[in-house]
């Protein structure tokens, strides 16, 4: 039996990471590396901090990307396409 703490105080800080908010996504950003100029505008605009800088270019963390599409909207080179999520 799970026992709930008073006021639902969470004894495991940082455990929100266990909840993969990427599940909410209906559209998924797909980056075309040919078009990407590594300007990092997507990295700066991502409200969830889901875009990682790598030597090869931006990398999306699909565990937490909610598919808001801000990266695709902001990309000056139209290098990010929002495609329907298939599960």
């Amino acid at each position, binding site marked *: 039996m*799970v026992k*709930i*703490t*008073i*006021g*639902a*105080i*969470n*004894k*495991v*800080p*940082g*455990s*929100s990471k266990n*909840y993969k908010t990427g599940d909410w996504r209906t559209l998924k950003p797909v980056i075309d590396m040919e078009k990407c100029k590594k300007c990092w505008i997507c990295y700066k605009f991502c409200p969830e901090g889901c875009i990682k800088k790598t030597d090869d270019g931006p990398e999306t963390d699909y565990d937490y990307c909610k598919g808001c599409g801000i990266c695709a909207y902001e990309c000056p080179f139209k290098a990010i396409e929002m495609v329907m999520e298939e599960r």
Partner: protein
Amino acid sequence: MVKKVIYGNHAVSYGAKDARAEVIAAYPITPQTQVVELLSEFCASGELNAKFIKVESEHSAMAACVGASATGARAFTATSSHGLALMHEMLHWASNARHPVVMANINRAMGPPWNIWTDQNDSIAQRDTGWLQFYCSTNQEVYDTTLMAFKICENDKVLLPGMLSLDAFVLSHTSEVVDMPPQEEIDEFLPPYNAKYKLDLEDPRAFGSLMFPDWYYELKYHQQTSMEEALKVVEKVGKEFGDRFGRHYGLVEEYRIEDAEIILVVSGTIAQTSKEAVDVLRKEGMKVGLVRMRTFRPFPKEKIRKIASKVNKIIVIDRSISFGSEGAFFTETKACLYNEKDRPEIWGVIIGLGGRDVTVEDITKIAKKGKDGKFKINEINWWGVKL
């Protein structure tokens, strides 16, 4: 023991100081300003070792108190009327996260039109935020209730925030004698707050995170059972306070109800006026008594049932109105009697909104009208309304 002649507002300040509040965050509003003025002086002089946080609004004041309480500090604030309304969101936060913040609310009418005088609509409007609500009728009770509120709210069976209310000007700006026990005796009565879970860098916790439907419901159950538990704790703490300091408090104060056939149910300072009215009527031979409601949340249902079982008539006098319904105390009193076999007749009277004066004569006339059965049933009885 120190006796001082002080304002109701300053009785709050002394209460918070003697309770050794550790964090005070407040925003000034008439008629509450003196409460925090004096507390800020206590902090500046070092008489009170508390962090005084100046904020830009009451919403922030309560947010600061919630944060402080989460660290395990004893947090206090004071406000009134529109200030309390602005706190509304954070009132839920304090209660739902189970932070035993204590607040003094000076009962003042809500505008517009602007009115700085007393009625209870500000605090009654916060009925469902999960705060304990106490209504005071003397400056002494204001001081005592400030001390008791911390002990009640911090009790591990309660762990809910609490607000004490006092009538604008009638108490807030009126001087009365207040007897304050020695600090060491208060410290014995009210030891430091020891939070079970607190914000602590060495032992981190997360507060106020997401909760899905599969457990949120249980938390609400716990809040309600804690409220019910608070009924016992209020009485226990009131008795301990009385045993130590000579002034006993319960959920309600009963006045001359032993053989009463008709009783008045009143709260706040109207209760003091009503006691005089009861004395006048008793001299005339009328068997009338008074029940002064000290607690509105939790509502002392069992107590009311017990009292009501012995009388024929009850008049509930409200200094508030729930628009579209009736006076709040009237609704609650009726509701807890509905399943009783022998219910007394019961009427609701609305009086004194926006600080309209309530005199001994008003109350004696109300009691007589009730005795003669001349009040409207199932309708609001507006007392002295100019049409």
